[in-house]
């Protein structure tokens, strides 16, 4: 088995940012851009006496999914929790701009081939958001990422690939919500406020951050799938995420638009109804929402394996 074939069978959860990036695209097709040999380190961490990484915790590059150029951004949680600073943020922004310029070139030179060769962006999140060591630069970079995502609207699908240990939190939680498509495994999470902060705000009686089952029910893949926030729930292997990415790359752009949760007036009208439902149900646990959505036995879904869960779960869908 080649190295790439071995990667396919690996747990996505256990894989490094670089393994995820290489494994998501076709065999041997990944070229890392501004990789560690370029040694773009954070200019701010050394001032604080902190260790640096030569890739600043973000792998950016390009590969192929068939004929589709796939721009990959993959965050490494093992380096300062995957938090975004000036360099890592610039790599994300640069990669998104690259997707736009590839699209524009294709549109100008070969418009008949747009559907067949349209680029796709895959963001493998593993982050808590802004890197506090260079907080202001990190915050400003988040706004730039959001701006670039809007530039790609109706042109290039931007896919959140969320299957890593830390998941996607803080300001990057907004970014994931703002992408076109969200693919998750049940072992990863998306949110804004992390469990420890909720416990601090509300007290342990309301939310016990050490209760892993509770934490996963609140922001984990199964919950996000039922709520319609995660479009596709996949098993925990690089191959499974990759297969889903291939299927998304083949979709026409109007089908992609229908997978969005937010980004248009009609989408937020649906979200406002969901908020009204929350006010009415007043959930003290995610299970209350699962019930309200039509799942009579939420505990059974929590315990279910992937196949049974997918067969049984009743869910909201993003599109009307």
């Amino acid at each position: 088995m080649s190295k790439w074939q071995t990667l396919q069978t690996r747990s996505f959860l256990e894989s490094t940012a670089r393994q995820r990036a290489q494994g998501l695209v076709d065999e041997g097709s990944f070229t890392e851009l501004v990789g560690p040999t370029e040694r773009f380190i954070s200019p701010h961490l050394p001032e604080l006496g902190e260790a640096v990484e030569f890739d600043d915790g973000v792998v950016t590059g390009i590969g192929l999914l068939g004929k589709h150029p796939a721009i990959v951004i993959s965050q490494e949680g093992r380096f300062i929790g995957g938090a975004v600073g000036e360099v890592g943020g610039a790599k994300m922004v640069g990669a998104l701009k690259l997707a736009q310029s590839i699209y524009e070139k294709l549109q100008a030179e070969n418009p008949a081939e747009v559907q067949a060769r349209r680029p796709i962006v895959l963001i493998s999140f593993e982050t808590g958001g802004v890197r506090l060591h260079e907080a202001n630069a990190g915050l400003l970079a988040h706004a730039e990422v959001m701006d670039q995502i809007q530039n790609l609207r109706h042109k290039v699908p931007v896919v959140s690939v969320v299957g890593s240990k830390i998941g996607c939190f803080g300001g990057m939680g907004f970014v994931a919500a703002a992408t076109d498509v969200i693919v998750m495994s049940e072992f990863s999470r998306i949110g804004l406020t992390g469990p420890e902060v909720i416990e601090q705000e509300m007290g342990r009686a309301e939310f016990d951050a050490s209760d892993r089952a509770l934490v996963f029910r609140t922001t984990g893949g199964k919950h996000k799938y039922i709520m319609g926030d995660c479009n596709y729930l996949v098993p925990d292997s690089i191959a499974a995420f990759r297969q889903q990415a291939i299927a998304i790359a083949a979709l026409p752009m109007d089908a992609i638009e229908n997978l969005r949760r937010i980004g248009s007036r009609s989408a937020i009208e649906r979200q406002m109804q969901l908020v009204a439902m929350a006010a009415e149900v007043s959930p003290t646990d995610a299970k209350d929402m699962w019930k309200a959505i039509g799942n009579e036995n939420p505990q059974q879904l929590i315990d279910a394996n992937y196949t049974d869960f997918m067969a049984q779960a009743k869910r909201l869908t993003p599109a009307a």
Partner: protein
Amino acid sequence: METMMGQGRLAIDMIVDQDSFAENQIPNFSVPCEDYAPGAVVGTARINGRECTVIANDAMECNPRFPVVYAGIIGMEEGYKMAMAVYRSIEADADLPVAKKRPLLLIVDTPGNGPGKVEEIIGMNKSTGAYQLALAEARKAGHPVLAVVIGRAISGAFLCHGLQADQIISLSSKYNTMIHVMPLTSIARITKQDLERLTALSTSNPVFAAGPEFFFRLGGVEEIMESPQAMRECVTRHLDDIYTLKAVNRTDKLGPWGRGELGEQRGGRITRKKVMARMNEQFDAVADRYLNA
């Protein structure tokens, strides 16, 4: 006047034409109930006779349905209400040329996003994400979007209510204006850095420190205003500036991207652009393989 914090409604009156603010009056805009997201104030006013959409925080209000939302916090209802005001403004001017599109004026005094359990179960990230996308769409459609920081512009709440604007102006820290991700004391605790050392370092490197003056050096704030009485004049001038830049297609000088460029000019965030230039160079060397697969 020592501070404008908590006085979003007063700030509206100080900036717009006298008695011109009409709350909830945006074409086709409506809220589901009277007390919907009361801390998010939206409506139409005139500035020197020109109609504009105003979106502000009222820090004196509490949300009756979501108890973590008070004191200017942007909760789920608030984010969607603000986003809806933006989409309705875009629709109202859809047929107008860029020079005639109404400005969006954001009056910023918010300490954060709703941090609760229900918020996470339903997805707080979607609400503020929705507002950011709406503002980005308005800006790209040609509406001038100007943010005026009068009090607190904190972290994720500033990301949604402020950082998608074309330009950002701020009252100086003399008025207790706060722009930061976290106070330096919390950053020191979480990153296990010595507070005195961080404070000392922040005078030479603005990425560490809290306050409008540091964001100014990073390009995150266009101009700092020395008194609340200066707000009206400053808003007028910046709106004119944004209209002019949009008329000559210099949107690269505006919005989050423009702030990146401005930061570099002011000597902050100087690595950012080098990273992107290198990425393009490296891609160009392999482009053929990916464009003609």
